[in-house]
């Protein structure tokens, strides 16, 4: 177990370094002068050449790229993600201020997604080949093919503007979390429910279930006591990795619903070419992904003894 943990932490560090290098490099070759972007993002509509030159000097944009990356990486290793080019505040502090809202959104979204996936997956497995299965598949397909930003706009128009439910401008509180969380969750529900259905049906074909049936176990008991625990590993893997994906999908949903979280802040940073914020968010997303993968591995190993010996 310790060996597995050490190996995964090493992989995580390499992944983080690679991701940071990649994103930093891509942004460096993005067309446009970051100094001009920063000035425009701060509302200077026609920055003068002198102002642009001064900003380039302030941001040390004329240093070689390798030097800039090295400087940034050294600080990032200590948790210092630099200063936002737009606001001049520490990126870490900006993220920290918005983290509670993002955690609230992703937390509720995760609960909704798990609940809905369980409902759809179990329903489909119980009614495999019949109308509940078809209905579950139809719902999954429907929410899968509609992009979250389209779904968000439609939900706002139908439920909020027309029906008067909820708010367009969410304020990050529990009272306004449901709609954005629902939209964020739906994309995950589709895949999670289908994986759960397949796993349940596979578990349902095991021979020990015939013994259980012979001993008088009903359909629901067989499902909940025998099939669901055996189908949990792949489902939990999907949920774990999907949790990281929820963080990655948050910028779009947060922007559509004006949710005051890290995601919306990052979209604003992208528009303003605020490189420290963009790279910082990418690192946070990668870190979340790696940690989620690690936790899933450990949880699955704890649930399923067969996985403990696997490398």
């Amino acid at each position, binding site marked *: 177990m310790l060996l597995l943990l050490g190996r995964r932490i090493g992989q995580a560090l390499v992944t983080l370094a690679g991701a940071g290098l990649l994103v930093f490099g891509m942004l460096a070759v993005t067309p446009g002068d970051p100094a001009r972007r920063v000035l425009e993002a701060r509302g200077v509509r026609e920055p003068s050449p002198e102002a642009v030159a001064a900003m380039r000097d302030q941001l040390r944009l004329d240093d070689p790229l390798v030097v800039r990356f090295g400087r940034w990486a050294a600080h990032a290793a200590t948790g210092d993600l630099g200063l936002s080019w737009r606001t001049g505040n520490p990126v870490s502090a900006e993220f920290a201020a918005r983290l509670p809202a993002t955690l609230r959104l992703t937390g509720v979204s995760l609960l*909704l997604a798990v609940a809905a996936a369980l409902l759809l997956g179990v329903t489909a497995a119980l009614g495999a080949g019949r109308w509940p299965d078809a209905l579950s598949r139809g719902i999954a397909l429907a929410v899968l093919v509609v992009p979250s930003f389209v779904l968000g706009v439609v939900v706002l128009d139908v439920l909020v503007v027309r029906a008067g439910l909820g708010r367009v401008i969410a304020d990050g509180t529990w009272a306004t*979390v449901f709609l954005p969380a629902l939209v964020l969750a739906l994309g995950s529900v589709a895949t999670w429910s289908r994986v759960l259905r397949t796993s349940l049906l596979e578990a349902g074909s095991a021979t020990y279930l015939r013994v259980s049936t012979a001993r008088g176990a009903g359909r629901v008991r067989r499902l909940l006591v025998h099939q669901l*625990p055996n189908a949990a590993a792949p489902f939990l893997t999907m949920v774990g990795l999907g949790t990281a994906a929820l963080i990655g999908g948050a910028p779009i949903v947060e922007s559509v619903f004006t949710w005051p979280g890290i995601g919306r802040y990052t979209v604003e940073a992208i528009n303003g070419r605020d490189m420290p914020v963009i790279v910082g968010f990418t690192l946070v997303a990668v870190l979340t992904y790696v940690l989620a993968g690690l936790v899933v591995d450990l949880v699955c190993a704890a649930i399923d003894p067969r996985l403990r010996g696997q490398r």
Partner: protein
Amino acid sequence: MSRPSPAVWRRALAALLFVLVTAGCATTGQPSAAAGPPTLTLATGFTIDDLDPLENAFWGPEFGYVELLMRPERGGAPTPWVLAGLDNPQPLVWRLTLRDNVTFVDKAPLTPAALAELLTYQLTENDDLAAALPGASAAATGPKEVTLTTARPAPNVPALLADESMVPVYDVAAYKRHKASGAPVADLVKAGLYTGPYIVDSLDAQSMQLSPRADHWAGKPALDDLTVKFVPEASARIQAVQAGEADIALYPPTATAPTLAGRTDSFFVTGEPVGGTFMFELNQRVAPFDDPLVRRAVYAGIDYTEIADKVMNRLYSPSTGLYAPSRPWAEKTQVTDTARAAALLDQAGWTRTGDGPRTKAGTALRFSVLTYPQQPDSDALALAVQAQLTRLGVGVDIRQVPDTQAAQKDRTGWQAAVSGNGFISFGGDYLSPLGRYLRSTGPRNNTGTADPELDAMIDRLGVELDPAARDTQLRAIQARVADNGYLGYLGMRRPAVVTGPAWRGYAVPISNLWVTHQTAPRA
């Protein structure tokens, strides 16, 4: 490992369902009920980070908490705002006369000494102002008077004092005390630095809350309550109006106007433009635009009225030249005349047989035009130009690039571009854009205009203080620009907002001055 009992599973499922249901109940948060006029909630696309006068004061005049010395006007000549008067008794001397009873929110009066200190501080700290008025100085010279002395005649002083990014009125002494204290910038909310009719009570990443100031020099302002919400997504701003969460949504995309037709909960309200919105830049360094006849033909071959009325559904006004017709010096230099355009192309040697493209020495007359995604209208305009010039036998390819300014840095790597640049500043400054876009050494002279005579005309204009002579010179400059096909505009976008029913009569202001002392609901 022992298996969970059925009871455990049932409890787990019940807990999940409980969460689902209770979270669902949370959707019932209703929009805040309108407190009744006169209140105003604006939804804007930009976030105001703080109240630092050197960094972010330019937002203040737009939302009523900062004032300027002069007020921009539609006709072009700024009028006194915080000042009672602005005179130019000598070529290098401007006399600023203060109003009575102007005080900052912190109760300190705006004295001549405070105003002189403000001007001096801004000339030191604001690079743009220092560049516009090099060598200028200010001093208190009377009980209500400050004298601004410039190193050379500066006819654009009124416009500079009406520009939100130049001299916002704030208490410099209080600001210096704040800087010296080392307190966080957020503390400026309580510092009372400004003189505007509204006071900022709170500011965070989501919104700004303002209240009226009873002791304002012009009396209590019209609104009892003012809220500015920061909503980056354009569709969310409009939906906020439709849901009653905002009264006015700023910066609506032009494309949303048709979607609001027939609705009773939101209205696309437009105003009159004060200048061109989209330049049509032709690169004189490369063919075919190295020939002035071709440039003039292209500008004459474009139907500006069709663009405004049919392509942009009357959300634009037709371009007639470099300036809006409301400017006293505006010349109608852009006149659609396809026969004249064809004759110019014939004269340039680009001939046509039948309906095909014009050719010259076996080469077809064709050029590409740059557009950019940040301004979706640039694509619509380019498509219109493409269709119109095809009738003349001129082929047009449209090339969308991430950043036109970056693409134009390659001086010979582009032929034409649709660029969102105005030709007059927020304060009404007509000099700076001329120098920026048309002077041979101008920092944004993308087209490669190199005309010593035009440079000399701009220089003469730069020291001309007499309005009548100024207008004459500006007309001559416009004529020279048109005669050589140096620059043109494709359209003037009407400034627009989306309002709720109570604000349907809102008069869309110039220079983004969304909230003034008099702003009140008008259905």
